[in-house]
């Protein structure tokens, strides 16, 4: 059958956002907000269209296609090309990135309009869309790269965009530098991960002689047989990169701070797309992991531990976005655990659905925040310590922001894993894999799933139910259509996302099998589904019971009384930031100081000066011989002569 192939269009998924950002860079500020926002959205939207065309082409021609664009680095045997890879895996990512991305662009048109006014610099409106487009371009490079090195370009590129967008309001935050610090923290933590990825790439090149995916994976079995240690190293160093980008233990610490960025950024970058790059990487390299069981074990435990750990912290947070952030970390843990177990499809499935409902939750949270901000302005108490993101200041918002409430509810239920929403199916698939192969992991993940339901219940209750706890919450108002429309679309996707890979149908499974190879299709296990659904309902119900009663103004979390110091730990994120400060940051700072002052200025810099001073001291002492007395000069001559004579006689 002869159909039109659109594979050659693939570079446009990168070029379109680049065009968008270039235009905005040149004229965006002059032509105004509507133009800047819609042009950027259009660019991303067109990228989405291209992605769809690629998907259509793939459906008739499922084999991977490589579209080279040009040479990049050619030195000796090292040949790296700028080349795009279209296969079922990359196209799934492209669709998610550009699809969710387009919605978030549209949302941002409205959101940023208020945000730049709230923060007092309307000049940055166009800049936001430039960064956003840059992000889309970088993310597209990441997912469409044909080799590890080009993927790394996107990998670091998205890190840069994350840096820029976290620090978008760089003069705000704690002490005025909080946001900038958060941005820096994100970039540097990611760089630690990138360090691992770099080492993994070096090892790949040394042992495989190329960075090209196909060629590398072709040899993987052979190399694993000869050098199992090398494969273990590659996979583990790669995992370090994954923990950085996908915010897993131990490098997850940047993601909560990244909430300093505007809310659409949190939705797009720090929930739906960028942070899933690590999952994508493991999925892409699943052939490697399949060959190294040890690495698989490590990966799944990292994922599972993160899932549970982050979920416990989410319980103790008051910031509406922070809860979602820890939830994101936790959900990423699910995905990582899944790919670690070899359930790559399940991981990817959860990745997609998570993009829908977590994107939705963040955007809805943004809508809530701006609603409260508006309420704050109406209430006319522009007190500085009022934090529009603090859930303790909210309450009862279901009346003021009914639409947002509804979509938020959908998102929360999907996240909690309530059937038949998207989250239920994808999470269930992960749990089934664990149930079948790793019982210990299963227990951990189920516990995490229960906590997820609980904190989502807590959040829903605190934000939308009960009575408004502040005047601002009382006067909060609903957001305009440009904001709510993307919410509704995402809500729809969150409801229907499950159909992508319904048990027994396995659409995604079949689709991805062209790239990942034929795997064992996930079964639907009634016991597992039952356990997870029951636990989710219990979690939600428990949260409702505990939190719906509390309405007084001096808000003390009810759990605090029940759990005591345990809750203090959750509240304080288990003091991990403090721990890192104590064992890494402060020692490095002290080390740098030690190197700068005593060592460099005090020792190394003084070597030259010391030599000079020594020479000078020698000069002064010899100079004393020159005392001006003729007789001592004569004596010196005589001594010199005597020395010569002595030498001649003793020789």
């Amino acid at each position, binding site marked *: 059958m002869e159909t039109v192939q659109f594979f050659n269009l693939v570079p446009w998924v990168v070029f379109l956002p680049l065009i968008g950002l270039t235009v905005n860079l040149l004229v965006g500020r002059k032509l105004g907000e509507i133009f800047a926002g819609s042009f950027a959205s259009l660019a991303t939207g067109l990228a989405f269209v291209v992605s769809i065309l690629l998907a259509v082409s793939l459906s008739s021609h499922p084999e991977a296609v490589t579209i080279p664009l040009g040479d990049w680095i050619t030195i000796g045997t090292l040949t790296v090309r700028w080349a795009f890879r279209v296969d079922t895996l990359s196209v799934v990512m492209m669709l998610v990135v550009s699809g969710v991305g387009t919605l978030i662009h549209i949302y941002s048109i409205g959101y940023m309009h208020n945000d730049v006014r709230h923060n007092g610099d309307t000049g940055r409106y166009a800049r936001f869309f430039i960064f956003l487009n840059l992000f889309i371009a970088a993310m597209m490079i990441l997912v469409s790269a044909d080799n590890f090195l080009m993927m790394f370009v996107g990998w670091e590129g998205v890190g840069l965009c994350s840096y820029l967008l976290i620090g978008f309001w760089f003069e705000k935050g704690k002490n005025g530098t909080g946001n900038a610090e958060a941005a820096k923290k994100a970039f540097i933590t990611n760089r630690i991960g990138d360090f691992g990825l770099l080492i993994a790439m070096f090892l790949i090149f040394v042992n495989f002689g190329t960075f090209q995916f196909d060629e590398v994976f072709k040899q993987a079995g052979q190399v694993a047989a000869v050098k199992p240690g090398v494969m273990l190293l590659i996979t583990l160093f790669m995992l370090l990169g994954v923990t950085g980008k996908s915010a897993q233990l131990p490098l997850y610490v940047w993601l909560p701070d990244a909430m300093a960025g505007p809310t659409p950024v949190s939705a797009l970058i720090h929930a739906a797309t960028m942070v899933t790059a690590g999952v994508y990487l493991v999925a892409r390299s699943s052939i490697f992991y399949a060959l190294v069981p040890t690495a698989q074990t490590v990966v799944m435990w990292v994922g599972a531990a993160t899932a549970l750990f982050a979920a416990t912290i989410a319980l103790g947070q008051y910031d509406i976005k922070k809860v979602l952030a820890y939830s994101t970390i936790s959900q990423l843990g699910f995905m990582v655990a899944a790919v670690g177990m070899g359930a790559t499809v399940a991981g990817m499935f959860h990745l997609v659905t998570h993009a829908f409902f977590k994107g939705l939750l963040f955007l809805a949270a943004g809508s809530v925040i701006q609603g409260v901000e508006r309420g704050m302005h109406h209430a006319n108490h522009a007190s500085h310590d009022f934090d529009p993101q603090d859930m303790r200041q909210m309450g009862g918002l279901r009346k003021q922001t009914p639409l947002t409430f509804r979509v938020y509810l959908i998102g929360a239920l999907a996240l909690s894993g309530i059937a038949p929403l998207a989250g239920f199916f994808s999470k269930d698939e992960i749990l089934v894999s664990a149930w079948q192969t790793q019982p210990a992991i299963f227990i951990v993940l189920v516990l995490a799933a229960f906590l997820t339901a609980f904190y989502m219940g807590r959040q829903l209750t605190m934000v939308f139910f009960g009575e408004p706890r502040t005047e601002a919450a009382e006067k909060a108002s609903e957001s305009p259509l440009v904001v709510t429309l993307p919410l509704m679309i995402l809500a729809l996707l969150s409801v229907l996302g499950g159909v992508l890979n319904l048990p027994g149908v396995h659409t995604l499974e079949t689709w991805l099998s062209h790239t990942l190879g034929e795997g064992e299709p996930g079964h639907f296990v009634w016991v597992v589904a039952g356990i997870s659904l029951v636990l989710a309902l219990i979690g939600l119900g428990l949260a409702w019971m505990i939190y719906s009663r509390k309405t007084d103004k001096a808000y003390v979390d009810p759990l605090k009384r029940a759990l005591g110091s345990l809750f203090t730990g959750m509240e304080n994120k288990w003091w991990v930031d403090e721990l890192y400060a104590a064992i890494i940051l402060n020692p490095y700072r002290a080390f740098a100081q030690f190197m700068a002052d005593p060592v460099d200025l005090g020792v190394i810099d003084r070597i030259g000066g010391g030599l*000079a001073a020594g*020479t*000078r001291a*020698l*000069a*002064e002492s*010899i*100079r004393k*011989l*020159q005392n*001006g007395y*003729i007789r*001592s*000069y*004569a004596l*010196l*001559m005589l*001594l*010199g*002569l005597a020395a*010569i*004579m002595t*030498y*001649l006689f003793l*020789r």
Partner: protein
Amino acid sequence: MTLIDLYSILPAATLIVWALFLLLANFWFSKRQPVWTPILAGAGLLASLVVSIFFTGKPMAGFGGFILVDGFSNFLTPLFAVTGIFAIGLAYDYLRRMGIQRGEYYTLLLFSISGMMLMASAGDLIIVFLALELLSIPLYVLSGFAHPRVDSQESALKYFLLGTFASGFFLFGTSLVFGAARTTNLTDILAIVSSGEADTMLLLIGSALMLAGFGFKIAAVPFHSWTPDVYQGAPSPVAAFMSVGAKAAGFAALIRVFSMIFPSLAAELTPIFWALAALTMVVGNVVAIAQTNLKRMLAYSSIAHAGYLLMAFVPFGDAVTRSNSVASALFYLTVYALASLGAWAVLIGMEGEDNQGTEISDLAGLGKTSPLSAAAMTVFMLSFTGIPLTLGFWGKFYLFRTAIEGGFVTLAVIGLITSLASAFYYLRVVVKMYFQEGQPEFHWNFWTSSVAIFTALALVVFSFMPGSLFDLALRSMLTGS
């Protein structure tokens, strides 16, 4: 006395006759037109220069081997004449400003130069001794020329007593060499020494004593102590002249005597030269760092350069290296002479009454007030340091090449490291002139400045084409080698 005999001493003889004539003429000029005495003295030197150049390339022996005219003397004789001309150029304004404008200065200068010329072509130890005294005695007087300034008198007495002390060593050494070799003629001594008939112990002791005498003249450590005191006390043009002429003459004698008669003792003497060279380079350069007075700094710098010159001479016993050894020493002497005369010229411009203005700190701001002098001074300092695009670099280049060729790599490294130390104090002069503010009083004078500018230009221009100078030095072979 044949015509050859006359020719052989013609440059020196011209000067002596001219000096005597000048002594008389001075009675006439000194009060009325004092400017004529220096001009006439300069004319005499010019005549001597012309004569010496005229005879270049004609080796000959006069007075039965007492006088040897060879490539070596043909190189040095014009150099002395030119040095003399510069010394006159430096003196005229200085003497006038200091109120010591006496015509005898020029006469004494001519006598001293004639001694130097004789030294360069001495073929007999008697001539070496006579030339040594002929060049020294006028210098004793010239050092004290600024009397009644106490400094000047002190320097004259120091120079005189220590100089005579050193002459005593030299003389005693000569007598022992005579005792060993039965003759004072250098060529004959060589024959006897190489035939093995001479008493080696006597020769060695004699040579060591002679070395002490020469060491004094060239200011090698530990025979150097007089140098800074005398340079500081003596009138600056005299110090300038001493730093170049007397040192060159001392080296001429050292090279002449040692490479002509003692090559067979090289095994014994080389370590001594090695140690002297190393010690001189180290002490000269190191102590110069601690100096605050420009004159004393230049004095120590001249000691240090004596060390470099000695380094070239260390492989004198090696027949293969000897030609380079002599040539590199002569080349370096020339380069050093230009830079030293130039530096003293700038110093003379700075000097006021009673040694005023000769501290290094007095140079502050010279770069702004007299840019040309400062630029020239910079060239001299860079040349002393051995930085490329000055002849000083090629001087050091050739010198170190000789040392390494002779196999004395360690010594060359010592030399290189001490030249690094020297950069320290030479740069300080540049720092003062350009990087620090000040209002120095500079006594501009056509003749003094001409010397500075001429030497600076020569140092820079010839650095682009040092080849011809290398050739010239390489052709300056000693008789018998």
